């Protein structure tokens, strides 16, 4: 889907353009951040193993990003309901869309921000419980979903502020702690989380008088929300915030020296990503009709991480692809019965070896191959 982004770009076999995100600022000359930074990022990326990116232009220079979202939505809307006809299939389709929303949120935190938040599922649970609580107190669907999102955002803001100084591991473990505390606290019986963390009997979602009472109709609701989230994702990527986030991710010290407000960037992305998780959780709750603490455990947390990594942590579309894999792969392997787990694990291992940049990276690699064939020995570059 992102193929369209780069299709129009000139072939770039340029020398390692490290992280192109700052190039726009660098070349525009209106910012104190100099060209030297770009060079510095080369080194940093090489050292942290991210590798220089060939031919990636800065997002703001790429064309058709919003168009890509439109194409994706159109294609999904036209084909998915026709291709998938079984009851189980529609169910998985909805699950895919809901997980994609949370996955894109995790992409903002991890892919863009470079911070590993273990508590994405906790935020989903916060969103789900808050939304269910609001529904229980007579709020309409859209109000309670927004309340769920706001609750997740507030929780994330508090946690993000508290963990602002924590780096890499410490942040990951700090958020892991949050998720573990969350699981215990949610599974206590209370007015808010129900009996043993189970809230049941939630009504169907309804919007503008239309009730989404089947998997097939919920598909449209989820697709609509995912569209909004993706549009926000493209906007983020093209915004100064996106550039600064990539700079902070690839070379925190350098970015800090250049005046990037690293902590504020991290906090913003964390809150945004958690909000997406909150929305996803709220939607899942309304769709299933219940909220259970086990649905938002560490397994799904690792699952979301796998979605982003397998799909491709370097692209907004990665989590969408990865969520598809995460949802459908176990179903495809269902015939293998007890060997399912072994094959699934082996499949993960092979996938990460074959395409370390994720599924989305396969497209890029194929493109590069085609280009190399077509224009052998093209020197220089576009930089």
């Amino acid at each position, binding site marked *: 889907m992102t193929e369209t982004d780069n299709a129009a770009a000139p072939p770039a076999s340029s020398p390692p353009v490290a992280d192109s995100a700052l190039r726009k600022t660098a070349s525009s000359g209106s910012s104190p951040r100099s060209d030297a930074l770009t060079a510095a990022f080369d080194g*940093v990326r090489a*050292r*942290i*193993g*991210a*590798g220089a990116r060939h031919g990636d232009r800065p997002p703001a220079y790429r064309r058709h990003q919003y168009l890509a979202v439109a194409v994706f939505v159109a294609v999904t809307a036209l084909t998915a309901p026709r291709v998938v006809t079984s009851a189980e299939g529609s169910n998985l389709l909805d699950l895919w869309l809901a997980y994609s929303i949370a996955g894109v949120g995790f992409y903002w935190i991890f892919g863009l921000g470079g911070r590993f938040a273990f508590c994405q599922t906790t935020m989903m649970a916060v969103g789900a419980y808050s939304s269910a609580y609001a529904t229980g107190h007579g709020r309409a669907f859209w109000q309670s979903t927004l309340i769920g999102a706001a609750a997740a955002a507030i929780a994330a803001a508090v946690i993000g502020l*508290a*963990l602002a*100084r*924590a*780096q890499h*591991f*410490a*942040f990951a*473990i*700090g958020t*892991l*702690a*949050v998720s*573990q*505390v969350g*699981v*215990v*606290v949610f599974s*206590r019986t209370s007015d808010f989380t129900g009996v043993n963390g189970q809230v049941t009997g939630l009504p169907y979602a309804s919007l503008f008088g239309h009730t989404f009472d089947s998997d097939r109709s919920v598909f449209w609701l989820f697709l609509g929300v995912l569209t909004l989230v993706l549009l926000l994702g493209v906007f983020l990527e093209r915004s100064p915030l996106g550039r600064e986030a990539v700079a902070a991710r690839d*070379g925190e*010290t*350098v970015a800090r020296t250049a005046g990037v407000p690293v902590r504020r960037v991290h906090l913003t992305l964390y809150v945004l990503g958690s909000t997406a998780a909150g929305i996803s959780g709220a939607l899942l709750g309304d769709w299933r009709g219940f909220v259970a603490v086990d649905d938002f455990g*560490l397994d799904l947390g*690792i699952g979301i991480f*796998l979605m982003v*990594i*397998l799909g491709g*942590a370097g692209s907004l579309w990665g989590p969408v692809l990865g969520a598809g894999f995460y949802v459908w792969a176990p179903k495809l392997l269902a015939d293998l019965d*007890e*060997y*399912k*787990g*072994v094959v*699934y*694990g*082996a499949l*993960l*291992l092979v996938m*990460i*070896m074959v395409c*370390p940049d994720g599924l989305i990276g396969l497209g890029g690699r194929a493109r590069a191959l085609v280009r190399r064939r077509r224009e052998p020995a093209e020197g220089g570059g576009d930089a």
Partner: protein
Amino acid sequence: MATFLALLAGALAYAAVLTLAALGFLLLYKATGVVNFAHGDLLTLGGFLAWWAIDDLGLPVVPGSLLAIVLLAGVGVVLERVAYAPLRKRPQMTVVVATLAAALVIRASIGIWQGSEPRRLPSPVGDGAWHVAGAAIAWQRVLIVGVTAVVVALLMYVFRYTSFGRQVRALAADPDAARLCGVRVRRVSMIAWALSGALAALAGILVAPLTVLDLNFGFAIMLGGMAAAVAGGFGSLRGAVVGCLGVGLIQQLVGGYWLRDYAGALPYAALFLVIVIRPQGIVATPASRL
């Protein structure tokens, strides 16, 4: 007093198990830079291998356990060859996913081999208890603390005074410089994986008699150990021991006396506070490099 003693013994034993898990994990991290998410499942595998050696092969408890430890060292080497060596030059996240995949494979394989039925591993010191001041302390707990103390002392010695330890420390400090100085990365990495596997087996075998051995048994222990190691300052052995002690004491003593319902969450809450107040850990290791 009796309650306090019992709780204290529980805390120390729990801390000791966490320490063993964390040490295996940390050793590997220091030597190879790998965060091994399969470590928890190695613990589980250790428990099941010991159960198999004792129950199916009919070995006595101690030789059976030793056999399991040796086998798991072998599994460590196999993992190194299959899931790590081909990925050595790849980014860290790739390796993390590979270890997650390995964890899934191990867990599923145990399920196929042994089924998902929970087991109870016999203790090498029997089910007896030591009666002190009215408190009954299971011999197994005493054994755990004793073995852990010996292992920690041994590891500290190895790290500080042997050639292998110096090489691991060199790799942890600066992999490139260590390689330039002639550290044989391949060999150190194999030994580290083997040792880490053996430590995982030891931890699994020691803790299994106190709880129920099922497929998810190792993962929670690994998580606790990992968390405690981070609280202690990731990369420092001393820090890991301190962190694990803290986690054990908080969970058993505070959880045992006051907030019984929330005992499982307490160490994590404390951990969160530690990270908020001292993000670099209790025992800070100088690590800031560009």
